[in-house]
C-alpha cells in the first residue's frame, strides 16, 4: 500500500497502545535500571487514552493526530508526555487538510515531529535518549523514499533503523534526562525512551504501510 488515511492512523495508535500495554513491564524494568521505573506505566496509560479517543466523522488526519498529541501531553506526565505530545502535534502540522498521505507527506511529518522532539528536549545523537532511535529512522525513511520505496517500504526501513539506534544506546553514558544523574553507571543499559520510540515506529510499519 502506498497511501494511508485517517483510519490507518487510528490503527497505528491502537496498535501502539496494545504494544505498550504488552511491553509496559519491560519498559518499566529498563527505566528502573537507569531512571525511576515509571516509563512503561505512563506510556501505556497515555496511549490507551489516545486509543480511546472517539471517532469523529470526517475528521482529517491532522486534526486526529493533534488530539493524540494533546492527549499525550495531558495524560503521560514526566518528560515523555511533552516529548511524545510535541512529536504528534508537530507531525500533524504538515498534514493539514490531507485525507490520504503517501511517502512524501509522511517524510515531512516525521521530520517535523522529530524536529519538535529535539526542540523540546534539546538532545543530540549519542545522549542516550529517544532521539537516538528517531534520528536514524528519519534518515532511513528519507533514503527509502528517495529510492522510490512505497510507504510500507519506507516505514519498514525506518523501523529497522530505529531498532539499530535503540541498540546503540546500550553502551552509552547518558547526558540527558534522569539517567544522566547516574553518570558512568548508566552505561550497559538500553535507553527506555529509545525503546518506546522504536515500538512506535515498528507499530507504524505494521499499521500504516
Amino acid at each position: 500500500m502506498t497511501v494511508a488515511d485517517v483510519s490507518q492512523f487510528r490503527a497505528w495508535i491502537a496498535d501502539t497502545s496494545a504494544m505498550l500495554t504488552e511491553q509496559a513491564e519491560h519498559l518499566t524494568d529498563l527505566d528502573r535500571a537507569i531512571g525511576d521505573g515509571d516509563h512503561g506505566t505512563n506510556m501505556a496509560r497515555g496511549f490507551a487514552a489516545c486509543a480511546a479517543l472517539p471517532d469523529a466523522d470526517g475528521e482529517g488526519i491532522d486534526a486526529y493526530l493533534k488530539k493524540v498529541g494533546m492527549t499525550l501531553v495531558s495524560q503521560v506526565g514526566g518528560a515523555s508526555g511533552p516529548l511524545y505530545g510535541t512529536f504528534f502535534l508537530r507531525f500533524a502540522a504538515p498534514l493539514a487538510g490531507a485525507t490520504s498521505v503517501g511517502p512524501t507527506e509522511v517524510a515531512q511529518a516525521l521530520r517535523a515531529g522529530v524536529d519538535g522532539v529535539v526542540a523540546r528536549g534539546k538532545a543530540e545523537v549519542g545522549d542516550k535518549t529517544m532521539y537516538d532511535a528517531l534520528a536514524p529512522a528519519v534518515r532511513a525513511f528519507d533514503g527509502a523514499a528517495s529510492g522510490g520505496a512505497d510507504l510500507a517500504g519506507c516505514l519498514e526501513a525506518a523501523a529497522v533503523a530505529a531498532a539499530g539506534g535503540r541498540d546503540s544506546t546500550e553502551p552509552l553514558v547518558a547526558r540527558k534526562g534522569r539517567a544522566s544523574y547516574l553518570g558512568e553507571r548508566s552505561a550497559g543499559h538500553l535507553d527506555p525512551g529509545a525503546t518506546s520510540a522504536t515500538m512506535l515506529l515498528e507499530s507504524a510499519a505494521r499499521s500504516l504501510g
Partner: protein
Amino acid sequence: MKKLLNDPADVVVEALAGMAAAHPDRLDVDLEHKLVLRAGGPVQGKVALVSGGGSGHEPMHGGYVGTGMLHAACCGEVFTSPVPDQILAATQAVDGGAGVLHIVKNYTGDIMNFEMAAEMAAEGGGAQVASVVTDDDVAVQDSAYTTGRRGVGVTVLLEKIVGAAAEEGRSLEECLALAQKVNGQGRSMGMALTSCTVPAAGKPTFELGEDEMELGIGIHGEAGRARVPLAPAREIAEDLLGPVVADLGLARGESVIAMVNGMGGTPLLELYLMYNEVHRILAAAGVTVARNLVGNYITSLEMAGCSVTLLRADDELVRLWDAPVDTPGLRWGV
C-alpha cells in the same frame, strides 16, 4: 509490596482527598486537576507561588500550601511531573493580579511541563508568570552538555523564604531574584540505606545489600552516583557535608540554615543523630548554624536514608525564615 493502599492507581487522588478532609479550614483540594490550593481563593495584589512535581515526596509540595508559603501545589503521579493542564489550572486559580512564580525542580519532565504551561498561560493572555529552577544537588556533575544538577532540598527552604517575601508584598521580579539567590547559595547531597517501591511498579526501584549504601541519590528512588560499603554515621556525615561545604565555598565565620532531611523511612532518632554529626563538623569548620530543620521534609516514599542541605545565611534570609508560616508541613509564628 506491602503498603496501605486500596488500588495503586488511586493512591494520589485518595491521599489528596485525605488532605482535604484533614485540613478543610486551610486547604481547597481540586481532585480533578490534583491541586492543593489555599482556602479562600487568590490573594489580591500579592505574588502567588505555584510549585509542583511528582507525588511521593510528602510533605512536599502539598503540605507547604498555606499562609507564608505556597499558594498552590500541582501533584503528579508518583515520581512523575504534573502535566501542563494542571499547572495552568493552578496558575489561573491563584493569580491575584501581581503575577505567579513557578518553582520548578531541575528534572527534565518538570522543566518541560512547567515550560509548556507557562507558554499556554502566555498564549491565553492571563497571569504573568516567572519561573525559578532549583538545582542544588552537588552529587551530580554540572555541565553545559547534560541535564545538570537535580533540584532537591533547597526547594523546601526556597518555598518558605520566598513565600514570606510574597506575603510581605514584594513584586514578581523581587520574588524571582530572591528565589534565584536562595537557589544560588544552597547545596544538598543525599544517601540511601534502602530503595523504595513505586506503588504502580510494585517492586523496589533498586536492590541494596545489607552492608551497602547509595551515595548521591536524588528524590525519586533512583540509584545514586556510587554504591559503597555502609559506614558509621559520622563518616556518612563527612561524605555528605564535604562536597556541600566545598561547593558552597563556605568559610570560617559564615552562617547557614541547615536541614537534615529524612527520605521517608528513617526514624527521627537517627536523623537527630545525623544532625549531631553535621553540627559537630560545621562547628569544627567555624560555620554557625543560624537556623535548622530536622525531619522528613522532602521524601522518597519509604526510602531509608537522609540528605543534608546547607543554605548560606544572611540577615535577610534569616528574617524571612523566621516569618510566620501556617501550612500542614511547616508551622511556626502563628
